[in-house]
């Protein structure tokens, strides 16, 4: 049998198009990632897989490192919302520092090193050789460093500076630091199940979104809304009302 362009076109439609449809039905075509980090051979969550998109709450959940420890060790605002603050948000708070190796940005890898030292989970960084002075002091105060580690890190510190000098003193500071408000807060990470758990009824859901509650309730509400072509901001405000 001779294969022509039209056959290839059909094969593409059937194999790729049909395959995606079938995989979607079988829940094997998720374009959003699984949030949990991978585990080490010992069965603990690997520090290397800590991500910039992980919130402080997720760090607490997976690594058992309390959000308050990170907040204190890095000099973040005490009212920082662990549910909203992502590790990558740090780069919007701290000024990059000039070190011998070049410009260094306090971000995910800095937290990885901190977590590794604090929880004694092995992690060798290829970019963080210095830590903020405040972070090292916090580790020492909490007796988390061995003699050797203490000697090294005390000699490899830098001073943390805030990009905005009013970061600590302002009464409010951007959306990434939100005090827990009373009532329902719908964020980008709120799942449909969480809405139902809060007490949103099927009728209310349908009234606000115009759609029935999907079978997959663990998907984020934001993704659901965006998939339906709606504006997330508008819809979540309706829930607040």
């Amino acid at each position, binding site marked *: *049998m*001779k*294969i*022509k*362009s*039209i056959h*290839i*076109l059909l*094969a*593409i439609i059937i*194999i*790729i198009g049909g*395959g*995606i449809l079938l*995989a979607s039905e079988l829940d*094997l*075509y*998720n*374009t*959003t*990632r*699984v949030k*949990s*980090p*991978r*585990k080490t051979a010992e069965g603990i969550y*690997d520090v*290397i*897989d800590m*991500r910039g998109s992980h919130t402080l709450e997720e760090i607490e959940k997976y690594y058992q490192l309390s959000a308050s420890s990170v907040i204190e060790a890095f000099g973040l605002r005490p009212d920082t919302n662990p549910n909203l603050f992502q590790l990558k948000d740090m780069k919007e708070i701290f000024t990059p520092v000039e070190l011998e190796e070049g410009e260094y940005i306090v971000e995910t890898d800095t937290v990885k090193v901190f977590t590794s030292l604090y929880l004694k989970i092995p992690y060798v960084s290829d970019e963080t050789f210095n830590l903020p002075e405040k972070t090292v002091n916090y580790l020492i105060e909490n007796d988390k460093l061995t003699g050797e580690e203490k000697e090294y890190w005390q000699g490899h510190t830098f001073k943390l500076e805030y990009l905005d000098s009013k970061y600590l003193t302002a009464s409010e500071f951007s959306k990434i630091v939100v005090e827990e408000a009373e009532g329902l807060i719908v964020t980008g990470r709120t799942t449909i199940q969480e809405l139902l758990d809060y007490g949103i009824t099927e009728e209310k859901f349908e009234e606000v979104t115009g759609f029935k509650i999907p079978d997959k309730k663990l998907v984020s509400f934001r*993704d659901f809304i*965006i*998939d339906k*072509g*709606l*504006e*997330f*901001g508008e819809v979540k405000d309706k829930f607040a009302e």
Partner: protein
Amino acid sequence: MIKNQKKNLIRLAVQICFFALIILVSLNQWRSEQGLAPLLIGSPSLHAVCPFGGVVTIYTYFTEGAFIQKIHQSSFTLMWLIFSLTLLLGPVFCGWVCPFGTVEEFIGKIGRKIFKKRYNNFIPSVIDKPLRYLRYIILMLVVVNTAISGKLLFSNFDPYFALFKIWSSEVTRLSLLVLGLTLIGSLFVERPWCKYLCPYGALLGIFNFFRIVKLKRNEKICINCKKCDRVCPMNIDISTSKTVTDHQCISCLLCTDEIACPVSNSLSFSLLERKNPTENSENDSGAKIRESISGGGK
């Protein structure tokens, strides 16, 4: 002539569709970051719709049951779908689907207009042939280093990601440099990234050795006009092969009797072994064309 142009349009249409799809994915990513609702489809990341992501995470998936950072289940599923397509038809993904290959090809059309017959023939064979294996070294480096680090290192020099996410701060200078060099190179060489550097093309190219639908040349009726060699974007020596199993074939069909080859049934994609129905025939089309070329005086 009209018939050939029509059939070329099928591949062109497929290429444009996938190119437009990736542009839409990219646009939606941007809109999503601006807090705007995505258009038509959701806002999957570029990594989520790239099957190579599935390849680089394969080790982590089978050893730890997890995907590496930035890679999603969709990449993994797409990887298996593309493997199936490639097993059947060869690297159709490269020749028909890959939007980066399409961009290279479009730029190549400008190069062809500028340099005419010299286009795609600048690099001497002695340098060109060994360079074609460079992509296998890159494939090994990418897969091994990704397995060790658990990070998507390839995106640091991936020109596909740089091109379709050029507005993002995630794009590295190195990948922009690779992108720039590839686009400039496309003016001189057809599909330079695919030929020399693409690790995914390297992997799919291996399927050419055992794919189900094979590109076959019927020696008995071939008139050795070498038109197939001239149109092949990957410079494969088709006119001397019986079955084209070159690891660089991208199943574009340009060389076949559907498009370039002037002799019917001389060069085509075949699913099953054929008995060369015309080879013993007195009405041999190859013989007829040979006669017309030689003026029938031989």
